[in-house]
């Protein structure tokens, strides 16, 4: 009697276990398949960029066969760009603007975040809130008055205007996530540092920045992406090729009237996307942390 009960119980358990496991397996494979479809869809444009960049102008203008495949792969587009002085200029300008923007933004936002997360002063709460609200201001809201202001400063068609303006896009968010990271550092750590004899700036430099390194990296990546990829400001404020940065340079230089040098344009896109892609590939976790920090910490 008792043996048969036990048997039946085992049988039920086995059956249940199986069906549960089957269900999980199906869900898993279903997820993989669906994700696979999405990945293919998402990667179509980059794939197409790569294919086109490997085609010669002749192959593109022949317009025969599948545009998705390359028949006679060539690096001539890349070679052309690398040796093309204008393109070198754009790249160099982009690099200069980005390095300066990132440095300026990080200095401003780390100092401010340290102050806002640790030293209350009159209005510091309001300032924290307005930092967040400033982040919500899109670049396209203010580019017209900024055009006038930049003009008055004599910086129209001078890439230094970007070094002034890009931080307005990067600093609010960087400050915001750094406030989050700094606030998560236990208060005892600064008290220990105070007792050990550190001043405020020593505390920031020797304790806060090393401890919040992941946040610093995430914020730096953010500032980098903003500065590298911005399009509206350089398009509006720069018009000669010696001042242009990559995003506008590619469009205005390689598209002349109705002549589209698609092979070169796509190769240029690839070369210009390379730095963000490389950074992303190596620092994906920080990248993601920076993306999500804004909402989860708010």
């Amino acid at each position, binding site marked *: 009697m008792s043996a048969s009960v036990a048997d039946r119980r085992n049988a039920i358990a086995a059956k249940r276990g199986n069906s549960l496991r089957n269900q999980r397996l199906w869900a898993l494979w279903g997820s993989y398949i*669906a994700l696979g479809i999405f990945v293919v869809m998402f990667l179509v*444009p980059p794939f197409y960029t790569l294919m086109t960049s490997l085609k010669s102008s002749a192959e593109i203008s022949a317009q025969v066969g599948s545009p998705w495949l390359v028949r006679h792969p060539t690096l001539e587009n890349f070679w052309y760009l690398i040796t093309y002085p204008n393109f070198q200029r754009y790249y160099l300008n982009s690099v200069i603007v980005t390095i300066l923007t990132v440095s300026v933004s990080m200095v401003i936002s780390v100092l401010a975040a340290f102050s806002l997360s640790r030293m209350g002063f009159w209005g510091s709460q309001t300032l924290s809130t307005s930092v967040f609200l400033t982040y919500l201001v899109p670049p396209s*809201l203010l580019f017209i008055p900024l055009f006038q202001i930049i003009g008055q400063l004599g910086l129209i068609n001078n890439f230094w205007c970007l070094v002034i303006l890009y931080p307005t896009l990067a600093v609010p968010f960087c400050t915001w996530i750094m406030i989050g990271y700094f606030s998560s550092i236990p208060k005892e750590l600064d008290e220990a540092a105070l007792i050990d004899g550190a001043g405020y700036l020593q505390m920031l430099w020797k304790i806060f920045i090393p401890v919040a390194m992941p946040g610093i990296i995430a914020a730096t990546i953010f500032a980098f992406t903003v500065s590298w990829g911005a*399009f509206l400001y350089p398009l509006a404020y720069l018009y000669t090729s010696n001042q242009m940065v990559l995003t506008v340079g590619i469009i205005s230089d390689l598209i002349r009237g109705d002549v589209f040098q698609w092979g070169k344009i796509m190769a240029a896109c690839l070369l210009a996307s390379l730095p963000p892609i490389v950074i992303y590939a190596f620092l994906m976790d920080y990248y993601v942390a920076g993306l999500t920090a804004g909402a989860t910490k708010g």
Partner: protein
Amino acid sequence: MADGTNVPVGGLAAASPKGRKTAMQKFAQRRSTTGFLLCLPLILLVACFVVYPAFYAIYLSMLNKKMTAFVGLGNFQFLLKRHTFQLVIFQSCLFAITAVVLKALLGFTLAHLMHNIPGKNQKIWRGLLLVPWVIPLALSTLTWWWMFDPSYSAFNWVLNQFGFANVPWLGVGWIARFCTIAVNVWYGTPFFMIMYLAALKSVPEQLYEASAIDGANAVQKLFFVTLPMMRNIISITVLFSLITTFADFDIVRILTAGGPQDMTHVFATYAFQVGIQSGDIPLGAADSLFMFPILAFAAFFVLRGVTKRTKEIAA
């Protein structure tokens, strides 16, 4: 109190509170002065290049084209009467709302799919799915433009293979509108996915176990556990995305430059066209300013909801 801890208090202690108070105030003051100084670069930056331009924009928007006379709200009236601008309002709203809804739904689906698969594989898939977000938008839009190219369109070639006729992707108003939205969805979905995934991971496993024991099925778990727990992150993500989509410039500018027949213009591209390209700075400023109340309205309601819920959770 006991055991001789009472110390006779000298005149010093009684007399000094005043003097000490100032010393203490000085200490507190030094701290807040340092704090303020550390924030000064931020304050200056925001004041000079965000707050000042904002007010300057209001001033500019009330001038005539040559910026010689004050015209009050004339530019706003002029814009509202113009058919093109009515199209701009319509397209901006259509573009932003459709794109955000699609991104939210797709992102949510993707996040759930990702959440199903084991952790170590997640990283690879996440890496692949985030690529659209990583490439600078202006550059990837160029590729899209090339794929929509009328003479040698990569998409049309595929359609032809299946026996369909060519589609004039960017040549016909509604199709062009669809294309701009599609590109925006392609670009923005990964952001939603990554935010949702972070939110999903933050829901404590015990809540699902408790609800399972309470007899909830998968759908009920989604509606009674997952979504309520994620509401704040969903709101903030939608707000971020709504603002950036509404104020989008890159996609429309590169893909259609507002055409055909101004049907795809959004606020930003139209402002660029009238303000920078045609040189009517005041009209451009007025055009951009139309965005402000709409964005402020959305931000106000979303953030109010978020703070309310945050307080509820804290209480």
